[in-house]
């Protein structure tokens, strides 16, 4: 029963029911109008014919008296047809005509009247409907002239039954069709809701069924599926983050706790206590930095800072950031080289892009030293290029370090990932994932390539639209050593 009520509640079913109601109302109005008009027309014709004949017979009566009328009526009665005649005297005695056994009430009526009469038929008498006019002649005699209208009655009965049958069939087909269409739709909707429930129950890997017909339900299911894919990805990201936080923050927290405990346990002088406290503060500052970096990435991924955008020149941003790091590079014995295109117009958040570029350079300087084993003649260098290509503004930062194996490249962009080889270097492992988050916020991408040897990170952003016309012409990189401004 619940399945049936559910069916009645479907939009399709209600729609087909409404259509059916409107359509049958229209059909009934049309048929009734047709029937009524036909009846009026036929009755009018009948009346006129009878009236004319009656006038004619009355004239005969006036001219030749009752005898002539009786003669003519008798003569006409003999011609086969639907005409009915009767002449009677004042005592209602029949003098001539083909109507017999007339009910007494008929004599008293004057004017047009409908009544039943009997007529011999194969296998006995039959009752038939007639329409007639009763006329009183001056001598007190009566004249009845009429027509047999049994056929007409048959016709209207036929029309009525046709109408009823027609409506019946229509109702059956309409409701049945509505039921069938609704059932089909309902079955698919039920499918969708059943899948949705399993997804809500926690199985995010499930997808809504798509029938392949490309109809509106398919389109809906497809958009919901891509939404689910995004949610699943985000959930996986969240899970990974919490796992990583647990893993990467537990270590320094533990270290911090051990150090304090140790300082408390061992009797020592003020200098030792002070030293322990100073290291504790250092450790706490490091933790704070990591937390802030995590928070920044989370906020970036939630779209924060996305509306705070200006028109910027990517080359200028890069030269600013490179200028900040140039002394660091020099200290580490790495040559920092810039090959910047003249103007690379983009639209973005200066602080976020600056931080992303700074992280890229910082990374290259940290991990870009030529491994001592392969140092034969190669000098450590980091090359930063900006260029425009196919509507994209690109920064590439290339180093000559050990690089990242192809299988690890995707993973390096996610939070906290530091390749085992680099664990000894200071850093939270959040640098590149922040870069990736900034790129995503600006509608861009980050990819890692082989610099053969070394690593090249390419950060690309959409070029600013207004400037696309001029910027699409590839601007040759203006090479040269870094000149701090």
């Amino acid at each position, binding site marked *: 029963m619940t399945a049936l009520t559910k069916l009645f509640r479907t939009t399709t079913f209600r729609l087909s029911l409404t259509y059916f109601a409107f359509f049958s109302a229209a059909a009934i109005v049309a048929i009734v109008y047709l029937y009524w008009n036909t009846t009026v027309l036929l009755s009018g014709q009948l009346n006129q014919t009878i009236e004319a004949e009656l006038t004619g017979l009355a004239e005969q009566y006036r001219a030749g008296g009752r005898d002539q009328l009786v003669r003519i009526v008798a003569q006409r009665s003999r011609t086969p047809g639907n005409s009915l005649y009767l002449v009677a005297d004042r005592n209602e005695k029949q003098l001539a005509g083909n109507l017999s056994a007339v009910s007494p009430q008929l004599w008293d009526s004057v004017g047009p009247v409908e009544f039943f009469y009997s007529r011999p038929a194969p296998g006995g008498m039959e009752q038939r409907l007639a329409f007639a006019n009763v006329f009183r002649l001056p001598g007190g005699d009566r004249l009845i002239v009429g027509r047999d209208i049994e056929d007409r009655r048959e016709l209207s009965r036929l029309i009525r039954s046709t109408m009823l049958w027609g409506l019946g069939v229509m109702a059956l087909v309409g409701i049945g069709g509505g039921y069938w269409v609704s059932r089909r739709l309902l079955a698919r909707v039920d499918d969708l809701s059943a899948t949705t429930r399993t997804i809500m129950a926690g199985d995010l890997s499930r997808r809504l069924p798509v029938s392949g017909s490309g109809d509106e339900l398919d389109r809906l299911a497809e958009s919901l599926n891509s939404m689910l894919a995004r949610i699943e990805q985000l959930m996986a990201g969240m899970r990974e983050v919490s796992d990583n936080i647990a893993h990467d923050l537990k270590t320094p927290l533990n270290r911090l706790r051990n150090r304090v405990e140790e300082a408390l346990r061992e009797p020592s002088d003020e200098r030792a206590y002070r030293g322990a406290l*100073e290291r504790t503060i250092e450790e706490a500052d490091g933790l704070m*930095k990591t937390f802030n*970096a995590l928070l920044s990435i989370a906020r970036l991924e939630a779209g924060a800072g996305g509306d705070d955008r200006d028109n910027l020149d990517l080359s200028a941003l890069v030269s600013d950031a490179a200028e*900040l790091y140039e002394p660091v590079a020099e200290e580490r014995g790495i040559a920092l080289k810039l090959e910047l295109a003249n103007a690379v117009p983009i639209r973005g958040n200066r602080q976020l892009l600056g931080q992303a570029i700074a992280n890229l350079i910082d990374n290259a300087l940290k991990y870009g030293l030529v491994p001592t084993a392969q140092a034969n003649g190669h000098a450590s260098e980091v090359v930063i290029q900006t260029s425009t290509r196919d509507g994209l503004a690109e920064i590439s930062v290339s180093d000559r370090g050990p690089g990242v194996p192809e299988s690890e490249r995707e993973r390096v962009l996610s939070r906290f990932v530091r390749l085992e080889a680099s664990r000894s270097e200071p850093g939270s492992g959040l640098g590149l994932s922040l870069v990736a988050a900034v790129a995503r916020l600006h509608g861009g991408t980050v990819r890692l390539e082989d610099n053969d040897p070394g690593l090249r990170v390419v950060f690309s952003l959409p070029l600013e639209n207004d400037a696309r016309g001029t910027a699409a012409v590839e601007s040759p990189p203006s090479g040269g050593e870094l000149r701090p401004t």
Partner: protein
Amino acid sequence: MRVLVIEDDQETAAFLKRALKESGHIAEHAADGEAGLDLAKANAYDVLIVDRMLPKLDGLGVIRALRTDEIHTPALILSALGEVDDRVKGLRAGGDDYLTKPYAFSELLARIEVLARRTSPEEGSTRLSVGDLVLDRLSHKVTRAGEAVLLQPREFRLLEYLMKHAGQVVTRTMLLENVWDYHFDPQTNVIDVHISRLRSKIDKNFEQPLLHTVRGAGYTIRDSAH
């Protein structure tokens, strides 16, 4: 220096009061926005430390009400990272400052000291000097004991900022914000390298160093002979 701390967390407030006293300042405390506003109106403070989220009247509301009353005591807003919006960032343009939680006390101290002395007579002058180091802001020339010191433009701006706040501690974050206009934390201590370059240019051949490192806080430029 007389400081008003408007902070609803009792423990944080007690810590700030104690730490400010140890640094030689007088600190008073209000536990909500309205009480803080009343105190700030009634007494003359050198600087206000205001928490962003406060009961009764929030931190930005307190500052707005004070400015409407023509009270221009500089204020430092303490805000969680997630609460830093355009209104908070706008504080810097208006002569106030903000600091995101969690923060190091040394950073807070350096900032309020700079805030309180923002209206120093040195601010508008075209010539800054510390000991025998002289910086001319118009001709962009620097001399130490009469000898010209050649600086790159960024080094000049770094020195200019340090000299503008001579005798005060300037943190790495403040330098990054005011000299490079970067409001984020570069993972490497890049500022230290820039400072050591600058130091080699202004202090190297002189007996008396002017540019000093303040452990756990930042840098300061001062003439220690006086």
